């Protein structure tokens, strides 16, 4: 069932190319939407059948390349299930959002379906090489999405994205090989590596491997100082591409910390966690400060991603401190990290789609060109307002639940760092309020460059269908997060037990 979940989109993507050239684009669009909806239904079924305290479930193994210690091994637990669900939801939102897309729809649909397979496969993978394969393929697919459907400078931005994240992926690969060689007999299987803890008592080796894996994942997350690929990639990418990039692809980095780095390298992780906390705090503050200085709406949202992912890094770093804090607090930090990933995926996805809506009408992201949009497009304004407030961590939304857990869990072990990170919330609040005032309030003014339509129609049905469920989910998680936390909490306790070895 899990295998079906992972591979159905790619299996549909290939025959799309076999359709005759004259197939109307609407057929392709609806195939795309239906497949995504099917995937969402599948993941809901998975969730319904998931036992919250059962550890790894839906496991499937197959011999793949035994000579290289590589096997096909997938499964889900409390860390991956929320992310799988998030992925399916976001891809459905993007499919709905793209219902009006006219440029090379068939290729776009095929690429997105392929991308969905890589994202789902990565979160389900329990073999390092399988993980890596999907990690790399997601980069390739996203490269073509940015380069093929992006804005003016897309080629350069896409190249930068590809080179940065590909460097990261190779660092990751070297780290994986380091783990592989350390285990006897050699294996890439995550479950076995986690059990064996092959680098226990080999501090120097462990540090090097952790460095390689850490750098690889940090590029993807991205944390300061590896974040510079992110703003251009987001600004130039099409709206749906940005939503997936921020909503799903960034999570691969932090998910890797929780799934690979912490359980497989517990000793090194504990030793070097402080460095990670520092990097996390720097990302939080740097992301927020630079976002504050932006005049381009999409670029601003991109930098807030650096800021939000910084909280996750702070949390996973703080969870390693063993002395003087209760296990419950640290478990709270890890749970908060997972919740933050989901919450950020929903909210940033929604924000980027709304940015796309704005761009489609005004042909620019420059905030100074807009004013008083709320007067002509009240629904759009309301949705943007809700997304922005949720993103800055207002209670009642998922962001609050996540950040509250992160700060509560991290304050005990790392008080200074956590207090600094809280400043980030203040900054994001300021910048979102400023952006909302600029774009939505005041006298009506719309950009009128050549070729821009003067009218600013309100949000259309397909756009609302894409954005509203994301925001609705964020509210549900903010009000009644139990169903998510019940799944995540046992898994985060397991991670901490593994970390304490």
């Amino acid at each position: 069932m899990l295998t079906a979940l992972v591979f159905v989109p790619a299996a549909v993507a290939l025959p799309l190319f076999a359709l005759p050239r004259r197939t109307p684009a609407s057929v392709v669009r609806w195939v795309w939407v239906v497949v995504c909806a099917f995937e969402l239904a599948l993941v809901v079924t998975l969730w319904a059948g998931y036992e919250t305290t059962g550890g790894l479930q839906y496991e499937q193994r197959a011999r793949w390349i035994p000579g290289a210690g590589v096997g096909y091994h997938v499964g889900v637990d409390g860390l991956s299930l929320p992310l799988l669900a998030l992925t399916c939801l976001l891809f459905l939102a993007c499919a709905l959002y793209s219902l009006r897309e006219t440029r090379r729809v068939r290729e776009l649909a095929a690429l997105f379906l392929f991308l969905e397979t890589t994202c789902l496969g990565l979160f389900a993978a329990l073999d390092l090489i399988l993980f890596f394969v999907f990690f790399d393929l997601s980069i390739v697919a996203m490269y073509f999405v940015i380069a093929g459907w992006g804005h003016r400078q897309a080629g350069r931005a896409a190249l930068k994205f590809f080179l940065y994240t590909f460097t990261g992926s190779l660092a990751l690969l070297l780290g994986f090989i380091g783990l592989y060689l350390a285990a006897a007999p050699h294996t890439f299987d995550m479950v076995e590596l986690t059990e064996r803890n092959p680098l226990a008592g080999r501090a120097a080796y462990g540090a090097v491997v952790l460095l390689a894996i850490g750098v690889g994942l940090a590029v993807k997350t991205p944390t300061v100082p590896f974040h510079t690929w992110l703003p251009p990639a987001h600004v130039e990418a099409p709206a749906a591409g940005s939503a997936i990039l921020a909503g799903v692809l960034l999570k691969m980095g932090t998910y890797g910390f929780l799934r690979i780095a912490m359980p497989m390298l517990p000793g090194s992780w504990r030793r070097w966690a402080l460095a990670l906390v520092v990097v996390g705090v720097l990302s939080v503050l740097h992301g927020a400060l630079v976002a504050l200085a932006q005049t381009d709406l999409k670029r601003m949202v991109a930098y807030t991603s650096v800021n939000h992912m910084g909280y996750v890094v702070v949390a996973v770093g703080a969870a390693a401190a063993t002395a003087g804090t209760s296990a419950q607090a640290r478990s709270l930090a890890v749970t908060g990290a997972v919740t933050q990933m989901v919450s950020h995926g929903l909210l940033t996805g929604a924000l980027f789609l709304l940015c796309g809506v704005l761009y489609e009408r005004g042909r620019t992201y420059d905030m100074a060109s807009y004013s008083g949009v709320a007067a002509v497009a009240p629904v759009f304004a309301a949705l943007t307002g809700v997304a922005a407030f949720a993103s800055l961590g207002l209670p009642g939304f998922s962001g609050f639940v996540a950040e509250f857990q992160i700060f509560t869990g991290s304050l005990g072990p790392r008080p200074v760092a956590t207090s600094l990170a809280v400043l980030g919330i203040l900054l994001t609040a300021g910048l979102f309020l400023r952006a909302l005032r600029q774009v939505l309030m005041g006298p009506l003014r719309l950009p009128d460059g050549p070729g821009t339509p003067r009218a600013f129609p309100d949000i259309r049905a397909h756009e609302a269908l894409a954005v509203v469920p994301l925001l609705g989910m964020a509210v549900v998680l903010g009000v009644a997060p139990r169903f998510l936390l019940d799944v995540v909490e046992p898994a985060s306790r397991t991670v901490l037990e593994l970390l304490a070895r």
Partner: protein
Amino acid sequence: MTGAHENPLGLLPEVLLAGSAVLGLLLGSWLPRARQWAVGALALAACAAGVAAASVAAAGPVTTVFGGAFALDPVTAASRIVILAGTLAVLGLSFPALRGDARESEYYVLVQLAALGALMTAGAQDLLLLAAGYLLAGIPAYALVGFRKDGPGTEGALKYYVLGALLGVLILTGIVILYAAGGATSYRVLGEAFRDAPAALVAAGAAGLLAGLLFKAGGVPAHFWVPDAVQGGAPPVAALLTTLPKTGALAALFRLGGQVFADAALPWSALVAVLAAASMTLGNLGAFFQQDVKRLLAYSTISQVGYLLMPVAVAGRSDLARQALLYYLAAYAVTNLGAFAVVCALPRARGLDDCRGLAGRRPLLAACLVVCLLGLVGTPPTAVFLGKLEAFGAALDGGYAWLAVLAAVNTVASLFYYLRWIVPAVSSSGPASRSPDGGSRTARAVAYAATAVSLGLGVAGGPVLDAVASPAGR
């Protein structure tokens, strides 16, 4: 070794190829021009039969034949299959271009002889046989580069020939010196003799040998011929040059490192590692701003030799070395042939920009190009990815972590120039599609097949990897 084990059936693939070459030469003298294709068909049949024979022989025991001069082991088996299958692809690519050519049969004979030379180099267990293989692989290839008798071809052939002649002298000198130092030419004897042979003598001989084989492989510092010969030669010849001799030479280097120089007082593996680093780096730097597709691929093959030398450097130091080398060789050969097949299928596209809009005109061919080029980068799930994974693993295992890191950095750098080719090919905004690309159906078929194999080897590489890893003998 009894010495009596001289069953020619042990060399069946080589014998088939040699027989077909000689027969082809005779046939070509009598056949009318319109029917010379029969020589090509004979060559194809010989290669196909050779692949079959080699596959059967691969299951046999590890042994040496002809007085210990030729090894029958996994290295030979894998090299045979790679070389013969590569020859099949090259012949397929050449067919349409050569139909009715005045020297059609000579071409096929030369291709077969070059392949035979590569086979001998790969299996040689004796320095003299290695020298013979070197010459046999080289001389027909010089002629093939200049086969079209045009300016660039002649220039390439001349460069190739002069450098080849120089390094041919070096390799012979090296062999003479090693003979003086060890008192024999058989690897088995030499390996023991070098334990207490004069270090300076062994080092001088090894340097000559290394230079000659690197010339064959197209690696730094003997790589200067590669860009000119590849650009000057016809595309199928370029595909041959960058695939077949490389396979033979790298297999030979692997044997030398694992057997002959394993116990010698000589920093052989460090030397190979440094050359690997230089090769991958210089090849990449050269490729960065090339505009001609063949020249770009030529530099890319130089950098690929660098990656291929990684497992060679750790021969005998890591258990992963052999499977890494053999798997990478197969993966590289098929992917590289796929890329050259795409070049053959687009005879009018000389520069990178000529490929603009390919995805709109020939989507499948564009997909092949993307898969092969990304494959050469090492993107999963193509075969080279698995090869690189093994090669990195072998290098780390053998204590060359710096080399693995450098290879990773180089891989990223190589992405840049492959993308310079991929981007125009898949972009839609090309000039309104001009005249059709030309190019034969056969070339396209070879491109599709090579791409499919490259993907297949990557996704289902398990059995292949097991096959090259299984028998314990080195």
